[in-house]
C-alpha cells in the first residue's frame, strides 16, 4: 500500500485522539451547548446511514443493485430479531455469498 495512505491513517488517528482529549480538557459548558450536542448526534446518524447506503449500492461512481441489497435486508431482519453484532455481520456475509452462488447477485 502507498505511503500516502499511511499518512492519512496516522493523521486520522492523531485527530481521533485529540477529539477525545478535547472533551476531557475543554470546559464542559462549551461542548455541552445544546446545539453542538444536536449537531454531533445528527452527524453520527447521518454518516452511518450514508455509509450503509454507499456500501450497499455504490460501485465506484455507479449505482449498482446486486447481492448487497440481499445482505442489507438479511441484516435488518437479524437486527429486528435482536441478534448480536457479530451474528448480524455473518448473516450479511452469508446472504451476499449465497445470492452470488445461486447466480442472483
Amino acid at each position, binding site marked *: *500500500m502507498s505511503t*500516502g*495512505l499511511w499518512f492519512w491513517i*496516522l493523521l486520522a*488517528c492523531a*485527530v*481521533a*485522539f485529540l*477529539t*477525545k*482529549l*478535547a*472533551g*476531557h*480538557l*475543554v470546559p*464542559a459548558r462549551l*461542548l*455541552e451547548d*445544546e446545539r453542538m450536542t444536536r*449537531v*454531533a*448526534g*445528527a*452527524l*453520527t*446518524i*447521518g454518516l*452511518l*446511514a*450514508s*455509509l*450503509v*447506503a*454507499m*456500501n*450497499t449500492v*455504490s460501485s*465506484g*461512481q455507479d*449505482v449498482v443493485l446486486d*447481492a448487497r441489497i440481499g*445482505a*442489507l435486508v438479511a441484516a*435488518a431482519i*437479524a*437486527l429486528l430479531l435482536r441478534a*448480536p*453484532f*457479530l451474528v*448480524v*455481520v455473518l448473516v*450479511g*456475509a*452469508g*446472504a*451476499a*455469498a*449465497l445470492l*452470488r452462488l445461486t447466480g442472483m447477485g
Partner: protein
Amino acid sequence: MRRFWASPAVRIGASISVATGLYGISFGALAVASGLSVPQTLALSLLMFTGGSQFAFIGVISGGGTGAAAFGAATLLGLRNAVYGTQINRMLKTPWPLKLAAAHVTIDESTATAVGQEDPAEQRRGFWVAGVGVFVLWNTFSLLGAILGGALGDPARWGLDGAAVAAFLGLLWPRLKGREPVAIAVVCALVTVLAVPHLPPGIPILVAGLVAAVWGWISHGRADEGLEPDVDPYPSGGHGATDPTGGEVR
C-alpha cells in the same frame, strides 16, 4: 480480587469487553479486504481506537475513495467522542497523566458502562474495565481478523461486501430511536445514493454529513439524539445507561 469482581460495574464492563472485542474480527477482515495491509489495520485499532470511525475509514477506502475522504468521514464520525469526554471528565476527574489514557479509551462502550452507574467509585471501575478490556480484546481480534481476511482471498466470494453493509447497519441501528433519527438516516441515505454518480468516491458521505450537521443545527428535537452509545450494557431498564448526555450525571 474477589471483591473487585463482585462489583456490578466490573462484571458489566467485562462482558461488554468480550462482546465488543469479538467483533474486532469483522473489522480486521473487512479492513484487509478493503485493501489495507495488516500493519495499517492494526494501526487503526491501536491508535484510532473508535470502532465507528475505523469502519468509516475502511468503508470509504473500499468504495474507491481517497485517503483524504476517509480521513474526513472518520474524523466527523469521531466527534461524538468529545461529548463523551466531557461526561467522563466530569464523573471521573482523572488526574494527569492518567487523563491521556482515559481520553484514549473514551468510546461508546466505556462511556455507557460508566454512565449507567451511580456511585462514583463504580463509575470509575466500570469505565476503566470496559475501556481497557475493549482495547485489549478489540486489538487482539482485529489482528486475528486481518490475518484471516488475508487468507480468505477474493472478498466478494465470501460475501465480505455484504458483511460491510451489515456492519454499518448494525452500528446505525441502536441509534434509530424515535422519528427524527429515522428521518435523518433516510434523508442522508437518499442524498448519498443521489450523489454517488456525480461526485468522486467517498465525497457523497461528506455531503450527507453536511446535511446531517445542518439538520442538527436547526432542529429542536431532543438534544442527545444519536448520541446514545451503540451498546446498552444495562438492557433491563437501567437508569440512564443509554443516555450519556442526559441529566443523570452528578
